[in-house]
């Protein structure tokens, strides 16, 4: 089927070349980072994780979001999603690839990565994260590829895939749960120390992932002869609507617990993000923007009139994707590290090379995503024409 991904028009090649150029730029800066060390980033002794890990966390969510089309189709026999499950699975593959790459670029000694397997340490959550992420990647590659191939050959997919598909559903939940456990099990980091962190991660994941999927569906309809379908998009939109409401609700629960209990160690992080602390307030405009975007997203997706207008829905999806990205991709990590364990505020601002390397990883992911979607759409076009 791979041949479908390398046959395309001028626009397709133009887009792929564009992405490749960004990957190239990111890679050049990564070489610089390999040579100099992580000092070219904005990271510090106090904020030892930043943009890379934040994007990793956000993308684990997007990957897990793919399950929102798999689950209704395979568990509830919601037939309409049969047209788009493959898109969800392929989105998961591309997202997990980005996640793994973000982890790699974040390592100080990337050549020693195999130490994680050689000296395997089941007490470390990072060890389990490696397991669940790679497992999810392989599950989706195996399932996506075989189901698509079966569809192309107009036969039912192999019987042995069924258990794998069922496993992949809780597995999707596990990847984001374990990723949340990276943070929420750490003593002395008040911002993350909340049992609702994993549920919060999942709710924002189930908003961001399907929102991106809706945008992909709208683009696919425009650039190909395959229409993912209006009903499918509307169903996804309802999922986004519920998920983003729950996400904001969870956040407000957090705010209540933190501020009604009035414990400084927990309040200071949220204060830092939303009103600034000790005169440092770089994240304040971003965080309020994020809240605004998510709120507008809620209004546009919950209201049936706006939701049913696909143009408005597209805007809502962009807003929700950006809003959740700022929340998780900017605030979640920096906010957890500031103030530091010694209650000092040393602000973390990602550096330009760091942002370019991250952009390169995103471009790599979208390159893979485009190729995979091209393949899937190619098969669909063959069948539905």
């Amino acid at each position: 089927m791979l041949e479908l991904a390398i046959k395309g028009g001028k626009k397709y090649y133009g887009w792929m070349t564009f992405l490749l150029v960004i990957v190239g730029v990111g890679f050049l800066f990564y070489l610089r980072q390999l040579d100099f060390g992580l000092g070219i980033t904005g990271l510090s002794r106090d904020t030892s994780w930043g943009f890379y890990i934040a994007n990793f966390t956000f993308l684990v969510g997007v990957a897990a979001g793919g399950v929102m089309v798999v689950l209704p189709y395979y568990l509830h026999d919601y037939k309409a999603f049969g047209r788009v499950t493959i898109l969800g699975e392929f989105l998961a593959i591309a997202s997990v690839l980005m996640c793994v790459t973000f982890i790699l670029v974040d390592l100080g000694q990337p050549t020693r990565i195999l130490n994680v397997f050689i000296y395997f340490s089941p007490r470390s959550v990072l060890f389990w994260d490696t397991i669940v992420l790679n497992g999810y990647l392989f599950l989706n590659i195996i399932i996506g590829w075989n189901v698509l191939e079966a569809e192309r050959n107009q036969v039912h997919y192999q019987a042995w895939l069924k258990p794998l598909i069922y496993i992949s559903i809780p597995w999707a939940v596990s990847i984001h749960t374990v990723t949340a456990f990276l943070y929420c099990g750490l003593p002395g980091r008040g911002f993350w120390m909340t049992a609702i962190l994993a549920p919060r991660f999942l709710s924002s994941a189930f908003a961001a992932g399907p929102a991106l999927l809706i945008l992909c569906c709208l683009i696919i309809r425009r650039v190909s002869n395959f229409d993912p379908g209006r009903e499918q998009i509307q169903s996804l939109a309802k999922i986004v609507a519920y998920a983003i409401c729950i996400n904001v609700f969870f956040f407000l629960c957090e705010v209540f617990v933190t501020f009604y209990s009035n414990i400084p160690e927990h309040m200071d992080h949220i204060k830092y993000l939303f009103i600034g602390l000790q005169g440092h307030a770089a994240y304040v405009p971003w965080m309020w923007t994020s809240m605004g975007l998510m709120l507008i997203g809620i209004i546009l997706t919950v209201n049936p009139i706006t939701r049913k207008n696909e143009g408005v829905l597209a805007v809502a999806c962009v807003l929700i994707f950006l809003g959740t990205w700022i929340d998780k991709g900017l605030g979640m990590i920096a906010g957890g590290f500031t103030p530091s364990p010694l209650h000092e505020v040393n602000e973390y601002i990602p550096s330009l090379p760091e942002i370019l390397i991250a952009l390169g990883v995103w471009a790599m992911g979208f390159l893979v995503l485009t190729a995979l979607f091209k393949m899937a759409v190619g098969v669909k076009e063959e069948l539905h024409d």
Partner: protein
Amino acid sequence: MDSSRRRVLQLLGLSSLALTATPVLNAFAKEAGHTEEPEPIIKPDKKALTAKQWAMVIDTRRFKSAADVEPLAAVCDTIHNVPHLQNKRHEIKWIWETHYHNAFPGEAGRFLSEEVEQRPFIVLCNHCENPPCVRACPTKATFKRESDGIVLMDFHRCIGCRFCMAACPFGARSFNYRDPRPFIKKINSQYPTRMKGVVEKCNFCAERLAVGQMPACVEASGGKLTFGDLYDPQSEVRELIRANYTIRRKQVLGTEPSVYYIV
């Protein structure tokens, strides 16, 4: 064509499986008593100091100004090849001074005695009895030595993921954001320098204890710091803990720090 491609993929799959299976197989092989590798035996120095759990007591009353702390940090930096980087973000710190409200955030009372507020507080790795950094490390590059409770770092195994830095509630760990060697004034060949991309921290002078010497900061402190076995009721540290009111950093977190402060 198609079958050969399939074959290659199968081989790739199998070989990747084999790669992950090795440690498991090794474990089984060991259990059966077949390929038991001889454990390396390190003969301890006759003068080596031993303890069940090393601990430190800092008499903060005897620290008046930065000048009291400086020689302690200086000797540590010199013998451990700790670099001095200009960029604050890249700083490497093993032992340093801070304020009471930074060392004990959340515990500093209001309207504190001016003398305590001015007093320099020494902070370093607490060599916790229940260290969260050790739990977090995905490669066991940082570990708690069973023989004497020191939390150590294997600079050659560390992958630089910095999970330990997120896990440490005391900010005791530093990461080499760049090659530290050009920033070491005079390299001490008795102790390894580090490379970029690994984490480091205070090691309670494990290398000195092994040859019968007290930690360098303790030696340089002129009695302001005391070092000894926490589980020896006769030890000097236990004497001090018994005789004085001591506090530990963020005791509420349950990590059981081994550094005690007389305030």
